[in-house]
């Protein structure tokens, strides 16, 4: 539904639906950049990141300073982010139809 998707695996979501993701963070990692991109700002998705030691979010489209159908965040912590499994919840907040999105980290 609109927006240019980067070359990456994309998933689909509808209103009220939730998708779960995980990523293992090894010890000594300083920061984690996450990028949730659905590209269509009329639709609203939320992103909640569950670190081993805290819950971050939920974050919405405008939380990265730009309302562009994309949430790009950099997560840091002094002494390094917690090692272990990081889970993420993506929630279809207000949607029209089915939305495609990508969810990547760097």
């Amino acid at each position, binding site marked *: 539904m609109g927006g240019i998707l980067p070359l990456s695996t994309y998933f689909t979501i509808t209103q009220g639906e939730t998708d779960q993701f995980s990523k293992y963070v090894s010890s000594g990692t300083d920061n984690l950049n996450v990028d949730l991109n659905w590209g269509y700002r009329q639709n609203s998705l939320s992103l909640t990141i569950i670190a081993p030691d805290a819950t971050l979010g*939920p974050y919405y489209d405008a939380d990265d300073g730009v309302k562009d159908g994309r949430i790009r965040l950099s997560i840091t912590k002094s002494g390094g982010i917690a090692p272990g499994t990081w889970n993420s919840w993506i929630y279809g907040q207000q949607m029209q139809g089915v939305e495609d999105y990508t969810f990547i980290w760097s």
Partner: protein
Amino acid sequence: MAGKRPLTLTIIFIILTMYLIGSATAAPGGYIVKPALDTDPDRETHDFTPITFWELTPRAMLIGIALCISPALIFPIELLLALKIWIYLGCRRIAKKNVLDNTIRSKMFDEICNNPGITFSALAREFTIGKGTKQYHLKVLQREQKIISVNKNGNISYFENNARYEEFQQTILMELRSDTVRQIFEILTLHSNASRKEVAEYLGISGSAVTWQIKRLCADGTVSATKYGKYVRYLLNPEAKKILRDYQPDRPVADATRQADKESSEVRSAVFVTSGKPVSPDYVMPNHSTQKTQKKQSKQISPHSQQH
């Protein structure tokens, strides 16, 4: 315990305050989450791994469910999870230095110190609290290395953990918990090489009952049995004699033995009867550590009232 409640409430208040203040300035847990609009385009990217709900950790499941209902529920859920940790930490706050702060636990510890080798059932008689509570306090005392438990033939006895009691001493102290065994020790202290018949007569119990008891004592190594002609005679282990001396401070075994040799002939013929049972006139109850125990034991002359 009641004194710890304000501390717990203070800790909860601090957590709550930190969480609320934290959420206004930075993400919880000391994380800093900021927009990443100008990330390096050459930086390598990876897809997150999609997983099903059932692959989540229980914590992530709870948070996810809360999120579906209302994001406002995340904080209470996290708080509950944090509190659970505090409750757990609260239990672990009991350490060796404060393990005796609890009145019941302290009394139980004193009872064990004053009655080395005391059994759970004997402790149960002293403390009118629930069985589970007693077990819990004993477990805590053991965990903090204040006491040790020794299991012998299914009977569990408790000792102060002060390296004072060696294995053989523990065995004797455990044996002394039985009135009958205590009386056998006393008779063998006074009369070395007493026969089964003599012991049975002194105690007023059957020969087979003596054999059963002596068999256990021989297995423990505190008594030895030697056959002289057609009679089996029993002898107290010299090491056991030494240990038993500590529990008869008013009448050392050595003195008692000398006196016993002197009075041997009289004692064997002259017995008096207490509670219908013939008992040696020179009957000396072993002196356990407390006066309370002594008083209690002095009432327990009946050879059949075993504590095992």
